[in-house]
């Protein structure tokens, strides 16, 4: 086994775990308004699945799957989605971030879900971005 190469057991277990970790992260985000959880926690779980993948199979393999520009854009997109929802509420004639104005049933619940998703996107992309910068820094 070459130095820096992981044992096949570690590689396989990490790969097997990742989909379940990501599914659990999505669950934590989507159920943030009805059970303990939310965007911050779920985003951290999803980002940690990428870190697990990097620990199991080496970071080069993970890095090939996303571009740095897209990562930075996604970090910004979450904040934009959050602030944009506030502006949508303004357009509908209510106060900033007053989701009660959204034209759906249980509007405040739906607004909170959208916000949790936006927070989750930002946290996921930010943690992966920080991880990338720290790993590839020389």
């Amino acid at each position: 086994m070459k130095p820096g190469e992981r044992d096949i057991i570690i590689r396989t277990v990490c790969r097997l775990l990742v989909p379940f970790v990501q599914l659990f992260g999505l669950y934590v985000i989507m159920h943030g308004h009805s059970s303990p959880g939310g965007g911050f926690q779920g985003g951290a779980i999803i980002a940690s699945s990428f870190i697990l993948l990097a620990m199991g199979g080496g970071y080069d393999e993970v890095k090939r799957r996303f571009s740095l520009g897209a990562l930075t854009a996604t970090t910004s997109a979450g904040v934009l989605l959050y602030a944009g929802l506030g502006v949508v509420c303004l357009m509908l004639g209510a106060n900033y971030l007053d989701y009660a104005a959204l034209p759906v049933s249980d509007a405040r619940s739906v607004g909170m879900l959208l916000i949790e998703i936006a927070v989750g996107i930002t946290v996921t992309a930010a943690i992966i971005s920080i991880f990338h910068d720290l790993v590839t820094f020389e």
Partner: protein
Amino acid sequence: MRYLHLVVTTLTGLLLIMGSLGMPATGDPDSPPSSHVSPRYIEQGYKETAVPNMVTFVLADYRSFDTLGEVTVIFTGAMAVLLILRGARSEAEE
């Protein structure tokens, strides 16, 4: 001058301990945190938002501006790390 730090630290510590002695007892129903907006959130929160998780409806609905700030902090953190580490690398390459 050498002992100035010790004196300042001890004084600050004493001040903080004195301050903590004036804190209301844990779970005191008459303490300021549980007598202003908390009863309103607890009594009306579910009726108004249809969300059973109290932590979420306070954070994401009533205190939405605060959460927007938190997200911006995370975003700023990621951008700061990006600027410092990636910026240092592109300087090293030149």
